[in-house]
């Protein structure tokens, strides 16, 4: 026995070394995969930046589309995108968060809620064009909302609703059960417990879900084309804020519109090469908008988490 002990140790050491080597290999593979993904995105972005750099002037943001590439701009497109996002957020966030809270905190656990759960998860995977077709039938024709900013906002709200519900539920599940029990022990009702504990603690996760959903919605083209967004539109919707009482104006909701992805799509299919530069410049801006939204999500999550003291 005593003679074999040193070789046992050597064997074990060799085994450990081999396992550590494998560990290293896997780590390297992971870094490679990440680098490949990042490199693709960065290459594409730099490529667009080089193509579109000359067009990234202040006039590009303040000009309407035009048949002359040099004078064309994205004013109606970015305003349209922004207003559609506004409608989307104000519809999808309250509905999604409320649905998530109900499913996690209120809903009884039985087969009906199971079916609802499965359906929500399935909805998150439905192709976006299906939402466009649904919206065309429901919002445009049945409700008669027209091919307006309101219709587009509601359509995209439907699209990202499942994402927000899922994110809300995930965030709520991360909250320890002891917090709920503590609140109940002090005599809180269920609503008080949700209002003072569940909502604030799950906020970072909810925000992340909302903004990732919005970042997806802003790049959507198919459902917006389906409901009939326009390609050439050289005027802006009526301003939401006006100088006379009641100071707010909701006419913009029913205004015709276009959005960034449609403008880009139109420019890439033009015969003149100069329009390709416009498309590249507009794509850079769209990517920048998405990155900014994602950055905002990270910052908000960081800020809100810092205030959490369990």
């Amino acid at each position, binding site marked *: 026995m005593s003679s074999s002990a040193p070789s046992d140790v050597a064997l074990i050491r060799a085994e450990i070394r081999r396992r550590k080597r494998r560990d290293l290999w896997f780590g390297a593979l992971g870094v490679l995969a990440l680098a490949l993904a990042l490199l693709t995105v960065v290459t594409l972005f730099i490529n667009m930046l080089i193509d579109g750099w000359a067009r990234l002037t202040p006039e590009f943001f303040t000009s309407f589309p035009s048949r002359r590439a040099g004078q064309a701009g994205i004013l109606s497109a970015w305003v349209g995108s922004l207003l559609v996002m506004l409608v989307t957020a104000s519809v999808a966030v309250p509905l999604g968060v409320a649905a998530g809270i109900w499913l996690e905190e209120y809903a009884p656990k039985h087969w009906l809620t199971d079916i609802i759960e499965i359906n929500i998860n399935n909805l998150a995977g439905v192709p976006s064009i299906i939402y466009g077709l649904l919206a065309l039938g429901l919002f445009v024709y049945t*409700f008669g909302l027209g091919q307006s900013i309101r219709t587009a906002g509601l359509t995209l709200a439907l699209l990202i609703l499942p994402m927000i519900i899922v994110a809300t539920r995930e965030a709520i599940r991360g909250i320890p059960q002891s917090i709920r029990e503590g609140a109940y022990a002090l005599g809180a009702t269920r609503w008080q417990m949700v209002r003072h504990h569940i909502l604030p603690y799950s906020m970072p996760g909810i925000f992340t879900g909302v903004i990732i959903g919005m970042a997806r919605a802003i790049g959507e083209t198919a459902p917006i084309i389906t409901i009939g967004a*326009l*390609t050439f539109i050289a*005027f802006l919707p009526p301003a939401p804020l006006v100088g006379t009482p009641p100071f707010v104006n*909701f006419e913009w909701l*029913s205004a015709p519109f276009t959005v960034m992805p449609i403008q880009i799509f*139109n420019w*890439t299919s*033009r015969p003149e090469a100069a329009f390709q530069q416009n498309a590249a410049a507009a794509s850079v801006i769209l990517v920048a908008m998405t990155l900014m939204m994602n950055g905002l999500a990270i910052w908000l999550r960081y800020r809100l988490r810092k205030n959490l003291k369990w």
Partner: protein
Amino acid sequence: MKQVRKTTMAALLALSAVGSAQAQIVKLDGSSTVYPISEAVAEEFQKARKNVVKVTVGISGTGGGFKKFCRGEIDLANASRPILKKEMEACAQGGIRFFELPIAYDALTVVVNPKNPLKQVTVADLKTMWEAAAQNRITNWKQVNPAFPDAALKLFGPGADSGTFDYFTEAINGKAKASRGDFTASEDDNVLVQGVQRDPGALAYFGFAYYSENRDKLKALAIVDPKTGRAVEPSLKTVLEGLYQPLSRPIFIYLSELSFKKPEVREFVEFYLKNAAKLAQEVKYVPLPARAYELNAEHLKQGKLGSMFGGEAEVGVRIEDLLAREARL
């Protein structure tokens, strides 16, 4: 659940109730081929009218445009082919009577890679390449015509939803939408341009504007007119003189009679007819002779409704034939 539904409906109704006071908007939609001309006219019109009257132009294809048009959702439909019988019926059902206004000509251009020695092609050759029977069978230029080079034949064309596809198949294969299916199809003509540019054995067809912008990368083939036996290259001149046959095609706007009663639409259409020649040429289409636009204006004044084509898919209509025709609903 009921409560929720009620609240949602109420919210939607509230949303739809606001902002019913619409500004004056002239709405166009339809073909992507006609889009550049309508866009140019809309841009100039709004400039001239200081944005008092607003114009929107959408792209949903000739067929999609007619659907909206016959439901009365838009004032004018952009169309790269004449209205079909079933579309006329849909319009009649929707109570939409219309004016048909030809506004320009386009030359469907057949292009090959500049390395290809070929200069001209007959309609029969094109049919051999594109007919449905050629599927998986005709894969080499030599099979089309023994005089052609020995090279793999790669075909590119627009997708089946486009008016260009309808017109080309009608003109070459004798029946709209009859085509082999094993070609690279794209709704984006730039994809077709790139395909031909990269492959010495490639052949594609699309509107003249895309060839015109890519003359350095592509070679347009002269088409032999089956009636005269003459090989004719696509150009402004040959289309105007009616020589480039059968791939010259008129393009149209269709105007709803109801919309025409609105002063802003009337003003826009008058502006369109006055400026179409200049703007069509600017975006690489072939303008009609001045007489044609005058005739359009006369038809509007006299209230001549309907189509000159009787719902038939027709190819090879020369400009002077077009002017001599009578419109019917």
